[in-house]
């Protein structure tokens, strides 16, 4: 069964460093998302991406964050100058979407720990 895959599963970084989280969405999907979840809290929307551009972004998704689809299969989230409060699970998700089709599928997440 097709699935969304994410790497790394866990990354530890020092405050101020840059991290790149990688995702391979389901191959025929057209819509891509990043969500994050701080431990014990709700799933928060960061950004959506369609047709090689950002569709919508949240207030959280400021200049510190960027997304890219560099090669038609990978979808990356870059976090520059990480802060302690960036520690969270980051989930990539993808959807085929259109007509009556609207299921959103998640990866297993990348756990980011900022020290």
């Amino acid at each position, binding site marked *: 069964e097709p699935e969304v895959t994410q790497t790394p599963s866990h990354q530890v970084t020092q405050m101020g460093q840059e991290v790149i989280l990688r995702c391979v969405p389901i191959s025929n999907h057209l819509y891509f998302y990043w969500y994050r979840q701080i431990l014990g809290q709700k799933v928060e929307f960061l950004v959506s991406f369609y047709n090689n551009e950002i569709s*919508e972004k949240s207030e959280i998704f400021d200049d510190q964050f960027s997304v890219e689809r560099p090669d038609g299969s990978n979808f990356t989230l870059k976090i520059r100058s990480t802060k302690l409060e960036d520690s969270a699970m980051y*989930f990539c998700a993808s959807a085929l979407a259109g007509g*009556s089709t609207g299921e*959103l599928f998640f990866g*297993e997440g990348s756990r980011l720990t900022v020290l």
Partner: protein
Amino acid sequence: QKEVEQDPGPLSVPEGAIVSLNCTYSNSAFQYFMWYRQYSRKGPELLMYTYSSGNKEDGSFTAQVDKSSKYISLFIRDSQPSDSATYLCAMSPWNFNKFYFGSGTKLNVKP
């Protein structure tokens, strides 16, 4: 008013009970409705998907959408300890720019 409201629980039931989980929403543009199960430190797993209104059944799960009341439900029949998890509702308007999530209901099924 939040876009999606969900009772956070926790909800504790005995094994074999029927569980009812609910979400309400405010945006009448939502068309696509989903329920997810999430175990601790894992990604949300899609359980049920419904387009527009109606009921859908899959195994021990039944999803209901009432767009007139802006209310969706998930029923779990014959609940098992393995169903203990956090259940998230999610929904999207037609443009898929964003999927809106409830805060999740933590369910504990006691043996």
